[in-house]
């Protein structure tokens, strides 16, 4: 049977995607975007150390984390036990899927949110997403893809509770998900976290072994 038009022609990528929960992620991202549009600006009343009203965490700052985490959790599949021994062909498709799924999900999320939120907030969401995505990659590489949410959510809790400095009435410099749009430390931190995540993703067991062995001979 000839493949239908516009379908993915690469058979390996097709079988890679078939084992993944792509529609599930897409539906979830749209759902989260809808939730952000509906209640994103509400103060969540999550406990904060500072009693200042400015320290309150609006719901959208939490929802961005979920958007960043979902494509990474979906790296897992019911064939995970088999995929451990997979080869270069598999890794290439995994990389293609990851980049595409991540960019498409964040783009569609931000596009839907842009109908309600002003541009600076969209920009802050995008910067925050980078940081969370990096942390999720790191967690996924360390603990397994299904637990990719752990490090971002733990970091989020720290940010929400301690992120606001009552003395200066500002968010701390490391609060990359809430600082003003044109804040350099936040930008560097978010980009740095993506690089850390990418490095953790690239540091596969065989690469680590090769790296260690080379050092032994030096």
């Amino acid at each position: 049977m000839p493949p239908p038009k516009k379908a993915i022609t690469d058979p390996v990528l097709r079988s890679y995607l078939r084992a993944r929960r792509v529609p599930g992620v897409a539906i979830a991202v749209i759902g989260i975007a809808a939730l952000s549009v509906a209640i994103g600006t509400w103060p969540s009343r999550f406990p904060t150390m500072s009693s200042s009203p400015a320290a309150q965490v609006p719901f959208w700052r939490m929802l961005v984390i979920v958007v960043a985490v979902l494509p990474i959790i979906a790296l897992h599949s019911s064939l995970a036990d088999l995929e451990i021994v997979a080869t270069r062909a598999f890794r290439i498709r995994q990389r293609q899927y990851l980049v595409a799924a991540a960019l498409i999900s964040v783009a569609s999320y931000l596009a839907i949110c842009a109908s309600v939120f002003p541009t600076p907030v969209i920009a802050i969401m995008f910067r925050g997403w980078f940081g969370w995505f990096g942390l999720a990659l790191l967690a996924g590489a360390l603990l397994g893809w299904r637990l990719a949410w752990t490090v971002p959510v733990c970091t989020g809790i720290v940010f929400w509770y301690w992120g606001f400095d009552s003395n200066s009435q500002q968010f701390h410099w490391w609060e990359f998900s809430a600082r003003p749009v044109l804040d350099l430390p936040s930008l560097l931190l978010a980009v740095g976290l993506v690089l850390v995540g990418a490095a953790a993703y690239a540091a596969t067991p065989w690469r680590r072994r090769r790296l260690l062995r080379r050092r032994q001979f030096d």
Partner: protein
Amino acid sequence: MLLVLLPADVAVLFLRPRYWIGVWPETGAAAQIVAGLTIPLIAGAAAWAAAASSRHKFTEQLAAAQVGPARVEAQRLGATTAILLLPYLLVHLIAVVLTARTNPPGLVLWAGYFGHGLFLSFFSIAFGWFIGRAYRSMFSTVVAAVGALFVSLLLGQVTSLLLTSGPVALTVATGPLVARLVLAGILLVVLLYLPGRRGLRVAAALGYGAGMLGLIVILVTTPVVMPRSPSTSAVCTTGERMKLCLWPEHDKYRPPLQAMADRVATLPAQFTPPAVVNEEGLDPSFGQRYLHPERIPASEPYSFTVIEGSPWSIAGDLANIVLDATLDFRGASGCQWDGLTPANRSQVSSLYAWLEGYIVGAVNPDYHTDAPPDMQQAWATGRALLSDTRQRQFAWAQESLKQLRGQYCRAAS
């Protein structure tokens, strides 16, 4: 998990203002904050643990085991609950030891907040375990974590659920707390029958749904934080002109308060402070005013609050009270303040800031303000006088009072 939760929970207790040490309700509230903060982690961990047998492809072996599935489940759920509760209990132990050193009254107020945090943890575990059992998917832990967080935050929009402080005038109400704990316990017991035979499984799922619904109804309809009945055993400072009374639990603030009462006693005779001022909540009408804030009577009795243990929060309230009583802002004895000019308004603000600093005995406040610039300017004028000699300060204050009275209190003078 424990390695992350333990240090994190202890950090939450100490990396914050430590005014809670020595006051039981604040001790309980400070130690239960972690239960609210870790809701997503507890729920996610519970979901992960619930799915462990299917994740390790061990369900067949368990199904064929001689022990009943409910018993196996009870051991797994029990172990998970014990491990996840351990850091919470430890944080309370540390907090209790620190406050018990000074042995203040009001231990029962601590117990209320302890119970509330316990309920939050049980709720998170029951929520996460059910999702881990019922939703077999790679997304189940993240759904449990984020779901528990959002359910509790959305419920927190309509009722007080994630508490951050334990004001001495309020208490965790016993009835609603017990109802919450009992329902959370029922949810945990029902969960044991989820892996059983099909009929039992459906019944357990239905029971869980009903229990959850009942819990939500109770959460929304019965507020868990209520005003206390006024204490008959208030502790009071001595004071020739103004006596200050505190809740007995706040006895540790009596020495600084005594100093403030003493400084009020040295004010010039033109100041006429009320003879007794209570801490908020000691007045019998407080409960009604707390429950029905829209029905605040025109002249509610004077009271002060201790915010985060700050002496400036007390002095600010006292300065307002002394000025209010001295200048008759409520118009009880013939003063008319409706036509206050901007210049005179600044004068009142300067007097307020001076009085606040004078009562607390310091110049630089410990709080931040977003008051309008002209008001801050007036405050700075008043505070600048504090480093002058006492004689000149009093002369300026008397002159200001005289001017203001002369303009707005003709009937009285």
